[in-house]
């Protein structure tokens, strides 16, 4: 499903790596990178796992080599990345305590496209 965002290019790509940076993380898709400035929710088997919960990083890294089947962007609410195994990574677009001004940034160096989602912006 296309969102009209630059992020659409990851559909059909695999999650190639997960990189933890300071207090945020990056999802790499063999080139394109989604930087998420707070730990996203990981939905597996209908259960949402928040950052810091036991096994959270394992669940996140288990998505490596899984293909993205769709992305969704709900303005002001959430970015969703769904995988072929039914798991989903959800990035809230509503600020929480300690969050910076940005929720996420997507960069596709192959075509030079990039996009930033700021909290409180459409």
């Amino acid at each position: 499903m296309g969102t009209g965002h630059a992020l659409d290019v990851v559909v059909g790509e695999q999650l190639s790596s997960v990189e933890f940076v300071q207090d945020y993380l990056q999802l790499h898709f063999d080139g394109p990178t989604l930087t998420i400035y707070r730990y996203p929710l990981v939905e597996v088997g209908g259960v949402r796992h928040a950052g810091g919960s036991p096994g959270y990083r394992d669940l996140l890294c288990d998505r490596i080599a899984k293909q993205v089947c769709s992305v969704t962007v709900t303005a002001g609410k959430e970015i969703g990345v769904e995988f072929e195994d039914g798991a989903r990574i959800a990035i809230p677009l509503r600020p929480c305590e300690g969050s910076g001004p940005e929720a996420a940034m997507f960069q596709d160096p192959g075509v030079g496209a990039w996009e930033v989602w700021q909290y409180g912006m459409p």
Partner: protein
Amino acid sequence: MPASDNSCPTGNEADIAGETNSLTMVALANPPRQGGRAGRELRRAAPRFPQFSQRGLQWRQHPGAGGAVRGRGLGRVYRGTGCRRCAHLRRGDDAEECGRAGGCRPAASRTGRTADAIPPVSGGSAAGSGGEPPAFIVSPGGDVIAVPEGAGGPTPTANGLGFQYTGGHGGLGLSPKVTGVRVMAAIPRYPNGYVVYMNANGQTVHPYTGRTVARGDPLAHLELSPARDSKSRSRGG
């Protein structure tokens, strides 16, 4: 034009402004030697940023400005080497401090938030001719933002929230690990916009050390100063 310490008698100037958002920037290429280049850069860049207009970030060209590009007067960029202390740019400034009316204030103190947030820049010596990238850009509020040497751009965001220069490598006081800088539109928390320095992996870094920083670090998002209006400029900024 009213006389002020900001006036540029040569006409080699570029006024830049936003309609509702003051985050319009100018690519100032090699200002010490090619003052008219700022205008040419602006004219060339303007059509490339339709998204900015949608977000209230506008490039405007003054029809009677000759070689210069003028907006509504919120920001102004001059050729010259500028003040080493506050990064105030004025034609012919070569002194350590510009001595402008109201005092020479470091750029960081103008923001009132992040000391030494914007790397000090005393000139745009890194840029060359043609379409080469600028050595630095200047906000309507007078903040000078160093652009990593050799970085390409500016590239706007897909959703018009900012623009970036990438693929560079240090220079002008930046760590060699700094490869890119992005300038982001105003949001309630940063009403004049903010600046983020990045490494090759798109990770937020400290501009001087190149080390990654946490999202809450004061140097992760460098707040820009408010735009100076024409009235304050005529009083001396």
